[in-house]
């Protein structure tokens, strides 16, 4: 095999066009933010019942995927799988890019985004949200440092491995923090479960790897580089295992809830009577985003199966985050146990939610920011290997 050589992608007309398209999405998101700031959130689909909407679904998906995108680097640095080593740099870069995209959505959806400096300087340490601000900023610094170490010449490999280990542990903490945003909400029956943290970690494994596979293939195709079938199929198998782990944790989450009579209501809502949420859960999350990709990568392992499986995992992942975030709020709070509410606005009923175009544009803008940043990074930094053909793969150990 030849030595792994990293080269910037070239600014072909196709690359520039795609960059322009992403920039257009980012501009549309900024227009949406400006409009919402001007009129207030009254023009969005979010209400005093569904307080977090579609932007938060996008943001949480991106943040969860960010920590997962780092897995490829962790597998190389921490777990010593040499085949993943050439992709480690881009894995770190993509992780930062996805996190920035997700955070942009969260910040731009704030009622007062102009007070971001307050959020960065005034901490309430009993808030898991405040801890997350530190975890997110720390992630960018640590993974950034890890990327620099990987790119430096003549660095002791033990130092890179140590940085990789710190980044890996930090990303576990980060996803624990993200899951705990929901897991620690005792008031809402749809959340309030310790399993949210590990569930979010396995979700990040699956979503992050799926995004990594698609974005890397996309950039390789754009720059005319070769991504070997065997390597892709191997990553597809790993994705299948991660997708199965998500299904397992999801099953435990719901079985545990079903056992407790007090949670029967919210379980019946998500699993049986919830309309759109039930459809998204069984149809999109479990079947399209779980069982189908697992079947694809194990029963028919191929290049196209892996690409399709990665796409389905992302679609299923969005559905899963939607069911958790929106479904958890749509189910009414049980303020008066033992009573039916016969009068009282929006009391004890399933809260309706219809996302607006502003929310969709903001969410898509976050995705565009992540992809633009990843593409720009690949354009100006030597993070993408020139050749990932199977013949060029380093043998493991």
């Amino acid at each position, binding site marked *: 095999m030849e030595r792994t050589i990293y080269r910037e992608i070239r600014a072909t007309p196709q690359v520039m066009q795609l960059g322009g398209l992403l920039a257009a999405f980012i501009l549309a998101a900024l227009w949406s933010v400006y409009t919402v700031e001007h009129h207030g*959130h009254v023009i969005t689909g979010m209400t005093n019942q569904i307080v977090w909407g579609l932007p938060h679904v996008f943001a949480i998906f991106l943040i969860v995927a960010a920590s997962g995108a780092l897995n490829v680097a962790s597998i190389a640095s921490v777990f010593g799988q040499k085949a993943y080593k050439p992709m480690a740099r881009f894995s770190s870069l993509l992780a930062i890019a996805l996190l920035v995209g997700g955070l942009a959505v969260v910040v731009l959806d704030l009622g007062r985004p102009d007070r971001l400096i307050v959020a960065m300087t005034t901490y309430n340490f009993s808030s898991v949200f405040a801890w997350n601000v530190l975890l997110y900023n720390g992630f960018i610094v640590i993974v950034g440092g890890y990327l620099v170490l990987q790119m430096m010449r003549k660095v002791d490999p033990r130092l890179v491995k140590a940085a990789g280990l710190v980044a890996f542990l930090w990303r576990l903490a980060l996803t624990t923090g993200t899951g705990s945003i929901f897991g620690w909400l005792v008031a809402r029956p749809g959340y309030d479960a310790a399993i949210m943290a590990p569930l979010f970690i396995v979700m990040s494994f699956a979503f992050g790897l799926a995004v990594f596979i698609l974005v890397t293939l996309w950039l390789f195709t754009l720059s005319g580089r070769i991504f070997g079938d065997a390597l892709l199929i191997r990553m597809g198998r790993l994705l299948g295992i991660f997708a199965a782990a998500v299904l397992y944790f999801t099953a435990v989450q719901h079985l545990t809830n079903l056992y407790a009579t007090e949670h029967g209501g919210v379980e019946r809502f998500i699993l049986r009577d919830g309309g759109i949420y039930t459809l998204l859960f069984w149809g999109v999350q479990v079947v399209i985003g779980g069982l189908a990709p697992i079947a694809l990568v194990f029963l028919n392992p191929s290049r196209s199966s892996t690409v399709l499986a990665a796409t389905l995992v992302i679609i299923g992942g969005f559905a899963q985050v939607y069911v958790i975030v929106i479904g958890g709020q749509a189910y009414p709070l049980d303020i008066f146990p033992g009573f039916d509410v016969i009068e009282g606005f929006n009391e004890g009923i399933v809260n309706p939610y219809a996302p607006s175009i502003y929310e969709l544009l903001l969410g898509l803008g976050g995705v565009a920011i992540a992809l633009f940043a990843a593409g720009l990074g690949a354009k100006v930094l030597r993070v993408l290997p020139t050749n990932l053909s199977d013949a060029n793969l380093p043998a493991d150990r």
Partner: protein
Amino acid sequence: MTNRAELTRRDILKSGAAVASLTLASGVTLMAFGGSADAKGADAGKRWGLLIDAGKCDADCSDCVTACSTENGWGHGDHGSPETDPAWIRKVTLKEQSTGRTVSAPIMCQHCEAPPCVDVCPTGASMQRPDGVVLVDKHICIGCRYCMMACPFKARSFVHEPVADQKVNAPRGNGTVESCTLCVHRVDKGRIPACVEACEQAGHSAILFGDLNDPDSPISKALEQYPSIALRDDLGLNPAVRYQNM
């Protein structure tokens, strides 16, 4: 639980220079360091609370809601939908599943002793005064709505549109979260909350206001004498609002 702005103010109060400036311009100094001038009225020895007698509450009366809205300037000029309009206080009528008995009562911020909204607020905007009243510091609320996710009582509202006709005693702001203040601006001057007054004037007297820490206060005596419940008592938050005959 205190917020950072308050701690800063305390730290400064400890220094001699601050004492001097406080003497010169107390209100200005307190405001400048992020506190509110009213906070000096908060007495750590007290815990203000409400006892709501659902047996006296008339299902067809909503004078408490109207009074709160008038006193604090919410609900006027809002042209959003009912889903997005603020509701610092709301009336509910309930039917007991096992008996069919119906009961009516107002619901507002329960001013928990261990408020989840204060725990989760990333900036400390959601805060508790020494006398137990839970408030939002509108100066550092970033509008993330995590407190609304955490509140078990749906007591908080997000301001979904620009506000007009604000009251001096209850500053509001588009993009921030708000809720019942227990009318601290009145309480600090020795008056009772607007909802309590309105209920009395309507002839129901279903809401009793007072100091839960004072064993001789009418509210403490009533609580000692008659059974009452707290909403979502299972959460162990020890709300300062309790209900009788629910």
